[in-house]
């Protein structure tokens, strides 16, 4: 009777699992969940009602949807979270505490903030809710010279662009928000911006002020800022954004950048997206390097697999897989990518669902000849979720060395589900442990060789993480 849908379960069931940090729903996740380290939720900014749930404020056009959204989100967590006991959290008591605050919130941003605070009680990543009327902590930056912003709901998410830079916190101590990548031929490149440049403001907002309301681990705080910076840089194609940079002498200046159209059309995978997948590959001497920004089967896997295959046919001495800044994506893509690199059955870890367990395992395929030379995986604090599952799996199998920084430590498979009223909820549906039984959540992948990026190194045109990887591979070749 049910054979067709049943036979689809094997490939599709795993595909539904999103292991992506900061990719929840149609708007970016700006408040990743607190972690097992035990951060606390700060008190709400308004007084909760002590009586029955107040009626939603009538001035919000979305307020009438709040009760249904709240109930659907609360129920989904209760019924579908992988841990029926929710880590000991009294979910009924949580509802009693948060429902009056949420329903009675003065506006939708506050409503969703309270909802996310409620999800934060679980102290896990991959828990997030957003919806119509919500705004990010920055809001999409759409300032023109005349200033002003455009409500998020009025923006076509398919026409967003950015000026072509990535800003991350790197360096020693608390680090500094630094341009770590400039896309060739982008507006930023044409304006003369270079990797290693310290950024203090984006869109007039000081980056130092972009602290999360939630307590986070330092690595999560830095990841949070990175995403907020990305969000601030993103806006309608053709609009402009001001970036204030600071040179090594402490001299500041504003640079006005135009947001470029993305090189490729954005894609959506269910409620995930829009995403702008990018794959790049190059060869340095006799070593192949492939980098990609999301784990997606189409079109990313095909391009990455083609690159690896090309390197294999060229008989390169080693392969570098650059996962820096890769927040994950479709969890199952880790399997076929591993298959490109192994000749025998290779387990990547265990998924503990609510009612069953799966082992993520890569089996040889009849139509693939794997690359079997040395492999080094590059990581940073933005390497998350599926990227962590992939890196940890190959590391545990002894198939790859990991070089760079400790990864984010947000590696819980989740789904992104539509709720009433146009809201979307990302929630955790499985726990993940490496083949050695190690939970990556709140811990991350520990590199075999820790290498720190610094603004000065980047400014000098160096990439110390990549250079360490190349050195490792070359030394292997000499043995």
């Amino acid at each position, binding site marked *: *009777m049910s054979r067709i849908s*049943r036979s689809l379960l094997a490939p599709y069931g795993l*595909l*539904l699992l999103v292991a992506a940090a900061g990719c929840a729903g149609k708007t970016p996740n700006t408040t990743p969940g607190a972690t097992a380290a035990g951060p606390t939720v700060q008190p709400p900014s308004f007084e909760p009602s002590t009586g029955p749930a107040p009626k939603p404020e009538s001035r919000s056009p979305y307020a009438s949807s709040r009760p249904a959204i709240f109930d659907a989100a609360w129920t989904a967590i209760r019924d579908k979270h992988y841990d029926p006991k929710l880590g000991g959290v009294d979910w009924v008591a949580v509802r009693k505490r948060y429902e009056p605050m949420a329903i009675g919130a003065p506006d939708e941003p506050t409503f969703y903030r309270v909802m996310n605070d409620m999800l934060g009680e679980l102290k896990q990543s991959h828990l997030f809710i957003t919806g119509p009327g919500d705004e990010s902590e920055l809001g999409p930056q759409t300032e023109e010279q005349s200033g002003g912003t455009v409500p998020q709901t009025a923006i076509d998410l398919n026409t967003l662009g950015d000026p072509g830079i990535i800003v991350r916190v790197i360096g020693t101590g608390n680090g500094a928000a630094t341009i770590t990548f400039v896309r060739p031929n982008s507006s930023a490149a044409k304006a003369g911006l270079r990797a290693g440049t310290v950024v203090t403001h984006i869109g007039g907002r000081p980056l130092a002020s972009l602290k999360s309301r939630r307590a986070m681990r330092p690595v999560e705080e830095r990841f949070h800022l990175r995403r907020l910076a990305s969000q601030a840089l993103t806006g309608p194609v053709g609009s402009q954004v001001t970036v204030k940079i600071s040179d090594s002498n402490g001299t500041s200046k504003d640079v006005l950048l135009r947001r470029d159209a993305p090189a490729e059309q954005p894609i959506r995978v269910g409620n995930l997206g829009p995403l702008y997948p990018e794959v790049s590959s190059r060869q340095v001497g006799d070593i192949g390097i492939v980098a990609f920004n999301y784990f*997606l089967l189409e079109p990313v896997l095909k391009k990455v697999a083609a690159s690896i295959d090309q390197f294999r046919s060229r008989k390169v001495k080693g392969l570098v897989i650059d996962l820096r800044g890769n927040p994950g994506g479709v969890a199952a893509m880790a399997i076929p990518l591993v298959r490109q690199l192994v000749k025998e059955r290779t387990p990547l870890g265990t998924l503990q669902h609510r009612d069953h*367990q799966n082992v993520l395992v890569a089996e040889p395929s009849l*139509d693939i000849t794997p690359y079997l030379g040395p492999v080094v995986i590059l990581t940073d604090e933005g390497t998350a979720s599926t990227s962590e599952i992939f890196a940890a799996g190959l590391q545990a199998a002894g198939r790859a060395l990991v070089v760079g920084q400790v990864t984010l430590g947000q590696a819980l498979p989740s789904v992104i*589900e*539509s*709720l009433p009223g146009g809201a979307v909820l990302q929630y955790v549906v499985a726990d993940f442990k490496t083949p050695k039984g190690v939970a990556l959540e709140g811990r991350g992948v520990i590199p075999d060789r820790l290498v720190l990026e610094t603004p000065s190194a980047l400014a000098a045109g160096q990439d110390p993480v990549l250079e360490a990887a190349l050195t490792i591979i070359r030394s292997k070749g000499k043995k």
Partner: protein
Amino acid sequence: MLRARSAFLGTALCLFATSRVSYAAADAAPEAERTVDQILADFIKASGGVAPWKKHRSLAVTMTISVRGLGLNGTATALWTAKGQYLETGDLPNMLSMKRGSDGKRYWSQDPIDGLRWLQGAEAEQAEIVGAWMGYLQLSAHSSGSKIVPAPAAKLECIEVAYKQSTATMYCFDKATHLMTLEQGKKASPQGDTPYITRASDYRDTGGVMMPFVQETTAGPATFVVTVQKAEWDVPTSASQFALPKVGKK
């Protein structure tokens, strides 16, 4: 749906033949004492019996797939022949395309996660149950026993069928219509067994065969809804359609 139904029909036929229970006996038995054979005999009768299948050489079904609440939609097809050949395809845009089939002898599968491979063990057995024309030849080999089990609802009567390699599956039938409306089991894969529950509805007469046009399969947090768009008998086929895709190792 028909494909599923055909497979289960095979199960029913197998068990029925083994125990030599007649339709008449099934009709006469009081409800409280009904046996597996009686339940299956009623199911076979209600779903049209074997006769419609013997008139045809192939069956093609096209379907839509949606994953409730997750914003995923796609299409699927299934094709069976009286020679035991089988091919199913599935496509979710921006996600994946998959194929599974048999040349009538061995079953293969191709998808981005588990690659291109010959199916073995429990996976092969489950594929055979699904892919066989009426299914009974394979099921007579795979079924290792059956029993009545408690039904989850008063309007249902349920049996559990054990298999040689894959885990047992529960099938439930509507007491009034005798059509199968619920299936509960575990889908085998290289990643392990995944529990599922499928509910079938919207049965329609398709060339004398009763086919559920809607099937909802729930596994973990996700519910797949498969809806039949078209069922066509005696479509032209060629052997190459069912062969293992060219290996062409890169």
